[in-house]
């Protein structure tokens, strides 16, 4: 089936079996390997992407459901030269260690900041509750999101 979607702001076409997971098509045909597979069962959130602006697990969505829709992966957040505040603060605040959870964390955190410019710690934790991290103990991740909210509000947003 020919699927047309907007991917990280660009129109893309991919001809593939419609029941393949969005996660696999992103990583294989579309060569965007930032989106990771942890559990394949909706539990870990490392495959988190935005679908029409909403945070979803790419392991639970089939590509046939994405025709005509807007998908944003971690590659679509910011470029190396122009990182978003959330990407910068994950670096400066130590929000990433091994990095496996990071793409999903960044997507969930950026989606939170777009709907709520100054979240409380509790709101940050709720927004990231579907993203598991085995390294950081979460404190540095919450601090990174807090710092990104500050940077955005003080005009640090790119």
């Amino acid at each position: 089936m020919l699927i047309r979607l907007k991917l990280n702001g660009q129109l893309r076409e991919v001809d593939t079996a419609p029941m393949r997971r969005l996660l696999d098509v992103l990583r294989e045909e579309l060569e965007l390997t930032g989106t990771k597979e942890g559990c394949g069962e909706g539990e870990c959130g490392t495959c988190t992407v935005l679908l029409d602006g909403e945070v979803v697990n790419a392991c639970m969505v089939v590509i046939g459901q994405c025709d005509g829709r807007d998908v944003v992966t971690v590659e679509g957040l910011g470029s190396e030269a122009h990182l978003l505040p959330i990407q910068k603060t994950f670096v400066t605040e130590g929000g990433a260690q091994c990095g496996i959870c990071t793409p999903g964390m960044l997507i969930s955190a950026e989606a939170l900041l777009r709907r709520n410019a100054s979240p409380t710690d509790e709101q940050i934790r709720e927004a990231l509750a579907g993203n598991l991290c085995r390294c950081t103990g979460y404190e540095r991740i919450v601090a990174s999101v807090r710092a990104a909210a500050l940077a955005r509000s003080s005009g640090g947003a790119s």
Partner: protein
Amino acid sequence: MTIADLASVPFERAGDLASLCARVGELADSEQPFVLLAGGTDWMVEQELRKPFAAGAEPRVIDVSRLDKLREIRLEGNVLSIGAGVTYWEMRNSPEVRAHAPLLERMARDVGAIQIQARGTLGGNLATGSPAADGVAAVAAYDAILVVQSRRGVRRIPMSELQTGYKASTREGDEIFVAVEILLPGPDARWYWRKVGTRRAQAISKVALGGVARVEAGQVVRCGLGMASVAPVTALLPRTRELFLSTKLEKIGPVQLDKAVDSDISPIDDVRSTGEYRLHVAKSVVRDFARALGARV
């Protein structure tokens, strides 16, 4: 089955509700297995766990995730109708749901995590029919009516008549969940939601209770209860409800209330909890609900 096998599963997209009903009827007649794929948060997980399909026995997947008719939230008079394709995230953000059926908004916050809420639907929750389903417990508390449709027309099933046993129901194989209708209990109605699990997010409950009641002069005049994970089906706690409806709140005592819960459920041990603990928690949350209504228990 591995997820790679999914590629061979046939996929089609539902156009509108009438053509979906016709298509489903045709598949049911020819005894072909099919799945209505909404959020995929139940079905996709089941595929990871199941044995491979025999060649040619793959179900036909029909994508219903963009069927507008299933995604409506409508208030007509004192009936709130929530489409079966409405997601938890949409319930959380709907002004109508928040104003008129706040228990649903509260329940939706406790489902999985935001990624699951953004995809999972009420229709999928009802169709899977797990006794642990949070959405089903919450709509049960509102004494909801389930609107189903097939090529034979529309049928309304009261929540109390839906579930007949573990994952078994009175819905026919070709009937599609279209909406959940709630006769609103009024703005002064009390509602209650408590989900007890191992952690706040991504946890299936050990016990969850949804409750809705209207109290007039110390007497409960409308009461609905839905309890998850304590029986093969969502428990409606009929004896407990009868006690609330038949006795002034000041006359309801803790022993009497516990006894009613005891007679309504006999939970079992499983991987998530023990029957004994579940019964203890079930009594505690029912007491908590009763206290919120003004009973001294």
